[in-house]
């Protein structure tokens, strides 16, 4: 295998490969961008006109009315702050917890490994139901409490397994030499493993953060009577709720008075955009972790 031959072979197959790849990517781009642009367009379109349908990626009658309706709802700024808080704190604590457990499980000689793995795996498929969970939270005094956003979901088996698998795949020389140099498990964890884990931590961090940002059901069940603990998504759900013709109207009773100005579809769209916007802003900062070899190269150096 001469170098010239491999170079030729490499560049030729590489070129067609890249071209086909690019074409596929463009297709994916169009197909995934379209629904988002469509949602954006409808959210910026006059809601009465939106009912007629037929919008693609540009608004017909531009308006900010849909957003104004939502933001006028009252508690949104405060709720957004609470959401941001729970996202930051919850994600950080969850990453700390899950990565520590993952690290422990990653050691094959760890005594509790088998037991703990099974213990955790079972939680993924077994649940006691809504009411027992509710009663537990109440007994623990976590009702109307910010911590109910953080504690129950903090230790998540799926995240732990993913991080652990990632750790299993890391080159081991670094950990070995550190051990021989006399470092204890925790120091290896902090100084060597965590920096190597940046891609997976970015990934899991993203998953957890999105989960925190989007969640409203826990607010609804546990914290609904305290407006100070309301989250953004919950407030948005309330807005959406108010624009929909309810079930009771089905039987001829008084129609719930709704916001006649704005149709439900427009509100749904505006809510989607408001929810996605922060994620769109944050994600580019995480992208550098997904560049091949960057992290390992850096740490090794």
């Amino acid at each position, binding site marked *: 295998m001469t170098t010239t031959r*491999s170079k030729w072979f490499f560049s030729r197959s590489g070129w067609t490969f890249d071209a086909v790849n690019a074409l596929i990517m463009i297709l994916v781009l169009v197909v995934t961008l379209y629904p988002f642009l469509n949602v954006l367009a409808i959210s910026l379109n006059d809601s009465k006109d939106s009912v007629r349908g037929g919008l693609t990626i540009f608004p017909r009658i531009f308006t900010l009315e849909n957003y104004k309706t939502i933001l006028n709802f009252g508690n949104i700024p405060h709720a957004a702050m609470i959401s941001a808080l729970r996202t930051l704190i919850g994600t950080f604590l969850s990453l700390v917890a899950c990565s520590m457990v993952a690290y422990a499980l990653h050691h094959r000689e760890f005594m509790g490994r*088998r037991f703990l793995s099974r213990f955790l795996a079972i939680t993924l498929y077994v649940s006691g139901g809504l009411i027992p969970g509710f009663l537990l939270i109440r007994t623990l005094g976590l009702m109307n409490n910010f911590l109910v956003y953080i504690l129950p979901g903090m230790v998540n088996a799926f995240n732990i397994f993913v991080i652990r698998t990632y750790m299993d795949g890391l080159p081991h020389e670094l950990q070995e030499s550190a051990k*021989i140099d006399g470092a204890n498990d925790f120091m290896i964890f902090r100084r060597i493993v965590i920096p190597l884990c940046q891609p997976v931590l970015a990934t899991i961090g993203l998953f957890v953060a999105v989960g925190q940002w989007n969640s409203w059901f826990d607010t609804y069940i546990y914290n609904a009577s305290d407006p100070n603990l309301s989250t953004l998504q919950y407030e948005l759900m309330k807005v959406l709720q108010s624009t929909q013709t309810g079930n009771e109207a089905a039987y001829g009773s008084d129609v719930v008075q709704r916001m006649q100005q704005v149709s439900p579809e427009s509100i749904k769209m505006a809510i989607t955009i408001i929810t996605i916007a922060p*994620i769109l802003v944050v994600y580019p900062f995480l992208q550098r*972790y997904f560049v091949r070899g960057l992290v390992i190269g850096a740490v090794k150096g």
Partner: protein
Amino acid sequence: MSERDTTVTGTTVIAGRRMVPRKRRGFFRTLAEQRFLFLMSMPFAVMVLIFNYLPIWGWTVAFQKYKPGKLFWAQTWVGLANFIDLFQQPRFYLALQNTLTMSLMSLLVNFTFPIAFAILLSEMRWRGFKRLIQTVSYLPHFVSWVVVSGIVYRMLSTDAGPINQIISAMGGKPIQFMAQSNLFYFIVTGADLWKELGWNAIIYLAAIAAIDPELFEAAKVDGAGRWGQIWNITLPGISHIVIILLILSIGNLINIGFERQFQLMNTIVLDRAQVLELYALRYGIQMNNFGRGAAIGVVNSVVSLTLLFVANGIFRRKTGESVM
């Protein structure tokens, strides 16, 4: 098996130490050595015990004729009656069939495509374009099923829907896609793929990012082309995570939720759209039959755990990967 040990998987082989069997070293000695590992894991295990295991007493509802409000000891116990009744419902089996079929289709599609996509994306040379695709591709994940189902309906509509317009332009007769029961499974799987492709690929992108670049260099030197690199380096490199996710997903085969089916269904395809969780909702909670709802939950969990252990066992024997 042994080749894998020396390439990228690299199981830990600490010089000398592994040779000594654990028993001889003594329980407390090991405990002391591994104290950090314990400290790093046990407190969180306790949290899991509290938040995840304690509520399992709720399974007792499956054995009761439950009425909310009545105290635990005041409930009527009916033993296995809820289960027996459940297994006699023809709708239960219909729901089971729908659930498993769509799950398997989804499993197939939601592994192959995101992995392929992640690999192709990581092979992309133009950084700017790559970043753009990366950001845009996961956007549909955030659009709710309510909105996505609206888009799907519009696309497939016979009334000025784009797909049918293309068909008409090519001389065919418009097809009412959403009214075909036989197509429902495919429409759901397709819509799911579209929505989740980018998001599911993220984790594989991270896994690919972790592969030691030296391995790629070595392969290039050995004359491997793009495909050669992908086949010999990338795929094995992400194989762990793929297998782990596969095992976990197999456990979830019966747990697929119901929102997709609920949003995409209509009166005509109803029989194909009833999935287990939807069935539990309509024939359990909504009928105030909490016992049955809980029984379905128990059946769900038992089946899932069985699937998990079986899948895990198979994979452990075949590939050495294991969740537990």
